[in-house]
């Protein structure tokens, strides 16, 4: 380079004290550290898919076993509740006089009421007999 000869090849950059002496040690530490991390990463990457699959099967099994039962039971319960409510309310609709009036005047002549009919659910047998005798 045909320029100022004062600019020689001297290196004006400096390093911290003892940099090159300690470099190899730090380098080997980094290499060992990255290799160890790599090994555990490899182990994790081998195990995680199996755990994921097992978890998926477990969830499917739980859903298959428990969910339909719960759904059906609830439906049955709700139906039973509704029927019970209807039965109770049906009895409450009529007091015994209204019931007799209904039976004698408004009821269909062909209507047959059996002892286990809903009308008699909350009425005792003795009371039924008394009513029939009275009327």
């Amino acid at each position, binding site marked *: *380079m045909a320029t100022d000869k*004062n*600019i020689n090849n*001297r290196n*004006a*950059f400096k390093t*911290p004290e003892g940099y090159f002496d300690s*470099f*190899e040690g730090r380098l080997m530490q980094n290499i060992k550290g990255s290799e160890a991390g790599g090994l555990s990463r490899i182990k994790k990457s081998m195990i995680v898919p199996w755990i994921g699959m097992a978890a998926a099967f477990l969830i499917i099994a739980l859903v298959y076993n428990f969910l339909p039962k719960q759904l059906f039971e609830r439906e049955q319960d709700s139906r039973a509740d509704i029927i019970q409510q209807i039965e109770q309310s049906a009895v409450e609709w009529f007091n015994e006089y209204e019931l007799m009036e209904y039976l004698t005047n408004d009821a269909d002549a062909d209507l047959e009421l059996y002892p286990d009919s809903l009308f008699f659910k909350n009425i005792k047998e003795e009371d039924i007999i008394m009513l029939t005798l009275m009327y």
Partner: protein
Amino acid sequence: MFLILFRTFIARKRPYMHPDDREIVAMVHTQQREAAFSLLVKKHQQRLYWHLRKMVIVHEDADDLLQNCFIKVWQNLDKFRGDSSLYTWIYRIATNEALNFLNKRRAELLASPDDLEIVFSGHIDSDPLYSGDEIEKRLQKSILSLPDKQRLVFNMKYFDNLKYEEMAEILETSVGALKASYFHAVRKIEALIKQELF
């Protein structure tokens, strides 16, 4: 006779490997990998460090790149085929590390009004690990104005005193292209320094 001539002209010429390098490669293949690697590090660490430091300016960055370079050497040492000398191979890894780093820094600075040359110039002015005088600072800042690959050629020729043939092997380019690149780099730096001084 014909076979000898054939082998001479047609067969691929193997690059010269220093006896030390041959010894190191032999050690790798005889289960003495750590010892071979230790020899390599001791032999090449300083030269590679200064090569990187002149490109990236900041000591911490040069240290990171040197570590990355040697980690790659460690990982690929048993795959080294001997197509080039060991030093050329390692030097090429370090050069690619430096160029990738500079591209990454440049991309990070896209959103910033400063460019890499300004950032590095600032480092030279404020770095406690830079002890050059004013003229040396001007030289370094002029070198920073060159494109990365031209700066690489200039540093390898001017500071590291590498032969064009060695540089051609490292940078995988022709001797002619390198000579032209160096010539233009020198002209540009001379012009910048004269501009600053006068």
